[in-house]
């Protein structure tokens, strides 16, 4: 029912949309970032952050502060906000909100599995997991020896179970196939999320398909660049691309055969939306690509707030907040390590 959301959206979604828009105005602005970048110590950062929405979360921290504490507390705020929204949400919005966390779940699974492979302590790994991607039996992942066990033991109970259908093998886990597993899972997840949004229809479908297509394309580019020079075959590589997005299907064919970064660039420059991203980079350079993609993503996420009566704002808010936490982490790291000259390298201003 595109165009008629205005009539019924607010019955269930009005309160939460108001909440999320309120949260959005709490995001740090360019002025805040400028001030933060001038900080000399982590205490300065804390002092500045206590004047923002983060205040209640940071004000009771004793003074010798660490970057991890700051990031932890900021993430805690995000998680609290998310949980509050999830509690208030009704179907189908609660499902939508849950979809947002699946990406973190995949990352956590991969983190734990890789960690156990390298014989790290499980508790230590659990602390590193993103709190949004936690599920009950996550620690049990350490028991599993191969993909099949992983699935049978733990993941069959999680929402990730359907995504596993494509990557169940009895091979023992190693770095390579964990990475392939991550990407296969992500592909399945993105496709599922895309389908779900299409099913919701209306403005949600329109906006989310745009945002997810961008995400899928970015992953495709990253997979291509990261797999250059590895033993991944072209067919395997193509299998990891999600089957939607601007690059699907012809772009994927071309990306699959790329052998170096300049070829990737050649493929991407054929697509007008991605032209400006690549035109910023000099030839042969891929370091700044991440930041360029992040900037583009932030721009698109902010734009989704321009329209009302859709769920895209929740997705956008969560992503923006994660970007903000990444920024804070980078700034705090730079300040803590006295690398203030590099502070602007990775900070993406949101407003």
């Amino acid at each position, binding site marked *: 029912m595109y165009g008629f959301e205005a009539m019924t959206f607010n019955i269930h979604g009005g309160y939460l949309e108001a909440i999320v828009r309120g949260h959005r105005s709490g995001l740090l602005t360019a002025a805040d970032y400028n*001030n933060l970048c*001038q*900080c*000399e110590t982590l*205490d*300065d950062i804390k*002092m*500045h952050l*206590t*004047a923002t929405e983060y205040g209640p979360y940071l*004000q*009771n*921290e*004793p*003074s010798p502060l660490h970057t991890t504490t700051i990031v932890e507390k900021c993430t805690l705020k995000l998680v609290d906000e998310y949980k509050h929204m999830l509690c208030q949400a009704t179907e189908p919005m609660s499902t939508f909100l849950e979809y947002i966390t699946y990406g973190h779940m995949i990352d956590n699974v991969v983190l734990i599995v890789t960690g156990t492979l390298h014989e790290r302590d*499980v508790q230590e790994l659990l602390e590193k997991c993103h709190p949004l991607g936690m599920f*009950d*039996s*996550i*620690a*049990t*992942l*350490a*028991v599993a020896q191969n993909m099949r066990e992983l699935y*049978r*033991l*733990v993941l069959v*109970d999680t929402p990730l179970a359907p995504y596993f259908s494509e990557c169940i093998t009895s091979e023992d886990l190693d770095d390579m196939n964990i990475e392939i597993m991550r990407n296969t899972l992500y592909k399945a997840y993105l496709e599922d999320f895309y389908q779900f949004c299409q099913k919701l229809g209306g403005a949600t479908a329109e906006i989310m398909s745009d945002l997810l297509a961008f995400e899928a394309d970015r992953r495709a580019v990253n997979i291509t660049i990261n797999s250059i020079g590895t033993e991944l075959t072209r067919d395997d590589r193509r299998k990891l691309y999600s089957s939607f997005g601007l690059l699907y299907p012809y772009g994927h064919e071309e990306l699959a055969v790329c052998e170096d970064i300049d070829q990737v660039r050649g493929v991407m420059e054929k697509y007008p939306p991605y032209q400006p991203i690549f035109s910023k980079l000099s030839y042969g350079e891929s370091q700044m690509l991440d930041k360029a993609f992040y900037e583009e993503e932030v721009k698109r996420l902010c734009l989704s707030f321009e329209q009302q009566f859709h769920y895209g704002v929740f997705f956008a808010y969560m992503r923006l907040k994660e970007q903000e936490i990444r920024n804070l982490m980078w700034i705090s790291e730079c300040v803590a390590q006295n690398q203030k000259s590099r502070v602007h390298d990775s900070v993406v201003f949101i407003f």
Partner: protein
Amino acid sequence: MADGDGPVMDLFRSQPMQLARIIIPMESAHRAISYLGELGLFQFKDLNKAKSPFQRTYATQIKRCGEMQRKIRFFRDQMYKAGVSASKISYGSVITLDELEIKLGELESELIEMNANSEKLEHAYNELLEYRLVLKKMGEVFNSAQKNATAQHKEQEHRRVEGSIDSPLLLEQEMTTDSSKQVKLGYVSGLVPRDKSTAFERILFRATRGNVFLKQDSIEEPVIDHVSGQKVEKNVFIVFHSGERAKSKVLKICDAFGANRYPFTDDIGKQHQMIIEVAGKLSELKTTIDVGQHHWSSVVQAISDQYEQWKNMVKKEKSIYHTLNMLSYDVTKKCLVAEGWCPVSATNQIQKTLLQATTDSNSQIGAIFEILHSKEAPPTYFCTNKFTSAFQEIVNAYGVAKYQEANPGVYTVVTFPFLFAVMFGDWGHGICLFLATLILILREKTYSSQKLGDIMEMAFSGRYVIIMMSIFSIYTGFIYNEFFSVPFELFGPSAYACRDSSCSDATTIGLIKVRNTYPFGLDPVWHGSRSELPFLNSMKMKMSILLGMAQMNLGIILSYFNGKFFRNDIDIWYQFIPQMIFLNSLFGYLSLLIVVKWCTGSQADLYHIMIYMFLSPMDDLDDNQMFMGQKYLQLLLLFLALIAVPWMLFPKPFLLKKQHEERHQGEAYVPLGAVDENLEPELADGSHGGHEEFQFSEVVVHQLIHTIEFVLGSVSNTASYLRLWALSLAHSELSKVFYDKVLVLALGYESVVILVIGAIVFVFATVGVLLVMETLSAFLHALRLHWVEFQNKFYEGDGYKFDPFSFALIGDEEE
């Protein structure tokens, strides 16, 4: 303007303010700011707006104070945990900030260490508790299993003789096999949170492909988990497994589920021994924990004595440093420069304070206080007392008065309760309201020191408004002659009496006037008569219009005082005068007619007169003529009203344009000179002022809107005052319904039960509907009449409040 020390109680115009600069030597700066904070009459301007908070001079001190506040919050949490409340009277000695910082640090580390120790002990204690539970529960399980097993064993033997083949369960099979061939089963026992227990069981089953036996038993009361320290509902479990691989898997899964494992033995003798051992350790730990707890609570008790003092001290210090950060810092001169607003009347006090600070800190150089000139609008500051402040708040809620403009707050003190009372006229209800508020006022001291609920807080802060409202409603209640809707013959007997025995109470026909007119208020005989409502409506409606006209005229007159005060002749001649003429020639005339009708008892129809004054002014008035020459007076008034409209509309924009052009020419031809002394320093200051563009069309449109608003407003505002009549009618009818249909009806049954029920319903209806709801609605309507009908005649309300740096005003913003 007052030169004395204390500010003059002048509510009509806000206090004259001045922009001042204070130059304070570094060494006495802290003390000077602190003294100014005690005085609370100086509003500092932020001179370092460009600097972010941590780049300012005193950022480190603020950080220190923040750290100390954090410690104090930590103490508060500890006090809350110990159930100790901070004592109001602090009898600690005076200490400096540095000493306090050290003391706080020491206390904090002491408390943290104690907490860590007791946590460790608690941890061990809880662990042992869990262990004891496991031993107990599992002992029971084992015992019953063994009994079963032996019983079954015997049965099996018995059956074996009979030759029947059973298919026993895994465990039983293991148990029944001959002890020589028995594969040693390993087992793990412990506690798992109950909400995770099913998932735990499932994963165990999957991981070992069903080759385990799990026995769970729930523990009734929640157990304190020794890792998180929270109360959790738990299950005791024991897992039997075979082989080392299975064991490692089970162990890993236990870890993953946060299941605490405890060693367990199947030997009953050893079990008993262990239980005794555990119990011994438990009692030992308990005593240790108790001793630690006692010590801890004594420390917390000691802190609670001085908690308030420390909290206030740190808060004050922090605010002082925040203020110091607003001052600009002169490196070469070794002094701080403050700028800000203060009342002119407080000049002496401030200078005295600064002098005091200089002498107290043994400074060589005194602080310099100088007055600056500025075109910036000064803040508005009214010296209110506890009585007038609530009324001033009513006005401020609409908008803070422009600097020195006429303040409607003065009149609000009387008109607000009065208009309220017109709508709430019942002396019974008035007395109830009065008594309720009287409690608030008599217990003012106790209430003001404690925290009240939201609604109570509001009622308490408005206590003087409410008491005025109740006094006035007692007065209007006497006029309406209503006591819970019942009339009394308080001021002598009614003026009317029945002519003969045939006339009834329900009619006025047949009544004749036997005495002088009832001396005060409404004659009680009207009550309950058939013509009661027509009579009351007519009276209250006319009264509403008279009151409204009086208040609106007051508003317009106040605009004259504003014009005169700000030397704005244009406003007086082209706004005040035509407005006066317009309003009074139409509705002022109506008021006149009302008064004449009341005095003469004429039967004229006032609607008719007013309507035909516009529709056909030339016609004769016939029956409606009330006095000689009425027709010609009406023609004159109509003419004046018609003249007043263009008078209001046209001249002002043109005059403003002319004025503007003249001023500009003056500037062009007289470049330097003593035109305006105030202009010079202001220009030197450079930061304030500036010329606004003069846009003629904008001014014309503005004036057009203003005129239309006034012309239409004079009709609609007059009509708006009829709400006085409507609400007072609603109030008296409602109370009459409650009285007649509840109390009188209940009396009629002559049954005590019904009477009691009726009385209860009556009391609740009176309190809930009439005293609470009706008070609120009458309050809101009175508020509207003041904000809209009265204040739009003159009040700009675009000023900003004087917000001095004062310790008394530092609220608990964090709590």
